[in-house]
């Protein structure tokens, strides 16, 4: 078995470990009680949920993201980079057969994503608030994810780097359930609860009331 195939299996093992950990996390949260809201609705929870996962995520919708649009866009680039790197990972056995135009797009997206990731570490180190908030795992998790995107980026340019990409993947996969990277699972819960709560109360995502000007 050559080095590429061996490391591919190691990556698969890491991802399986990660998946098991994530499933355990999911099992844990699903075993907790769900607090059903007994109050009479003023708005529709469904519309709030829809808003939370769509327009509510637009950079102009919240004061926080309007004020920090640069940081927010950086975060989006970073996450798009991660998702793209996963795409590259799963298609990597055929990396030599990628169409040149697709390759250029993937290189640009992963390159920007990796840069955005490493910039995130610099921002955490530089900003007083970010420094005060950050815990060691924050730096390390962002570093590992940035390395993962870098692995995809480098592999696209030089497929000989695939073993590096696979080894980083293996480590990241196994580390996900233990680290802050697992927010990728809880994100869907928190946004759902946010949308349902404020939608039910008629605060977000509702049509105009008869009293609106």
């Amino acid at each position, binding site marked *: 078995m050559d080095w590429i195939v061996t490391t591919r299996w190691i990556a698969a093992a890491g991802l399986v470990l990660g998946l098991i950990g994530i499933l355990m996390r999911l099992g844990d949260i699903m075993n907790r009680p769900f607090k059903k809201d007994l*109050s*009479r609705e003023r708005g529709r929870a469904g519309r709030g949920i829809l808003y939370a996962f769509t327009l509510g995520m637009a950079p102009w919708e919240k*004061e926080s993201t309007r004020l920090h649009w640069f940081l927010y866009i950086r975060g989006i680039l970073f996450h798009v980079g991660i998702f793209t790197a996963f795409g590259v990972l799963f298609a990597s056995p055929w990396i030599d057969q990628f169409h040149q135009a697709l390759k250029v797009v993937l290189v640009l997206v992963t390159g920007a994503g990796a840069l955005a990731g490493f910039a995130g570490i610099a921002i955490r180190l530089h900003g007083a*608030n970010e420094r005060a*908030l950050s815990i060691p795992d924050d730096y390390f998790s962002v570093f590992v994810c940035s390395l993962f995107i870098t692995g995809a980026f480098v592999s696209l340019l030089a497929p000989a780097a695939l073993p590096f990409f696979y080894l980083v993947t293996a480590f990241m996969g196994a580390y996900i359930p233990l680290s802050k990277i697992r927010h990728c699972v809880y994100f869907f819960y928190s946004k759902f609860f946010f949308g349902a709560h404020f939608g039910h109360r008629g605060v977000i995502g509702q049509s105009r009331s008869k009293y609106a000007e």
Partner: protein
Amino acid sequence: MDERFTAERFQLTPEKMAVGLEVLRKRMNRQLKASLEVCVRCGLCAESCHYYVSNPKPEHVPAFRAEQLRKIYRRLEDPLGKSAPGWIAAADLDQEMVEMLLLTAYGSCTMCGRCVINCPMGVDTRLIMRTARAMLTAMDMTPEGLKATVNVHLETGNNMGVTTEDFVETVEWMEEELQAELDDPSVKIPLDKKGARVVYTLNPREVKYFPYLLQAAAKIFNAAGENWTLSTESWDATNYALFNGDDAAAKKLAQNLERAVNHLRADVLVMAECGHGYRSQRWEGENWVGHGYPFRVMSFVELQAQYIYEKRFELDPTVNSQRVTFHDPCNQARNGGIVDEPRYVLRHVCTDFVEMTPHGVENYCCGGGGGMLSMTDFAKERMAAAKAKADQIAATGAKIVATSCHNCLDQLDEIKRHYKLDVKIQNLSELTSAAIVWKKQ
């Protein structure tokens, strides 16, 4: 050690620690767990907090506050929190942490929810802070003023210990005053009227210090031809257990009003212009008591808008000709969706209404929420954090700041004096009442 927490009851014992951690375990539902897990500590929430806007330091970032409880949570529930606590900043609930929780959950957070609305991840920091408060309350570490307010309410039926005799006398006095003012003896303030459509509640401050607000409400009800009443059985709109996180106490207080409305067989419970009282009974009450009410709960602000929409009385907005701005109480707007109604009212009862920036759901908390006014220990920080609101008010050029919450009213009045603002603070119903063109019934 902060000198405010040197009393013996603030000292952590193994028994207290067990009680506090048990509260955290019991409250760990999906909503709380998701909020504890999902924060990525990006810090984008910083400017959403009026404490931070007024005094920008890392300790005032909402995520920093929530992080204090997260540290305990990670120590309790995270595998790495047990084996490598330093790596994920997990911490034990020790004396130092108790003090940190007191300073963050009680001392510098009004649970206004502005950070919740602004969090890109949907973290409910308000829920996290209330959980921390609940833990401290279970450990008998609630700041004295708030503790006393809840206890007085539980013991006497209202948070100021007003006797039924005093309550009835005040109501009768206000009825006479209103009849004299309007020269109309048909005007009534009904007490315990069975079968009334509406039961109206009051903030005890109205009975004790500002009875003219009851007079204003009564004028509106009478002008609208409403079939309404007050209840002597239970009339206090407030529920400070919302702020100390004690759900058992909150349930008892919510049940008091529920029973009174049921005994009078009313269709609607109308909450006085009291932000947290409205939120408690309208949004939290049914969850505390564990079932839906057989009646509707609404805010007096909503009812005023409805009366005006239905043209139940004639209005002359020129009597309120000075520039008016509106302060949205967090518990009505951000936490209850009442944003358009007060503006609809103001467009009809005054001639020059201007908005603050920001306003509505994104309005800054005045600093009087979260039971802050009852916790005099934190008064200095409260007034410092109110600078954001003072600047907002000053920028409008308004002469009147209207609001629809008693805690906001008090806090805005203090802000006015502290920051030397040339404004008058008024309840919305005062402006509505003044604008009513009275027609003898």
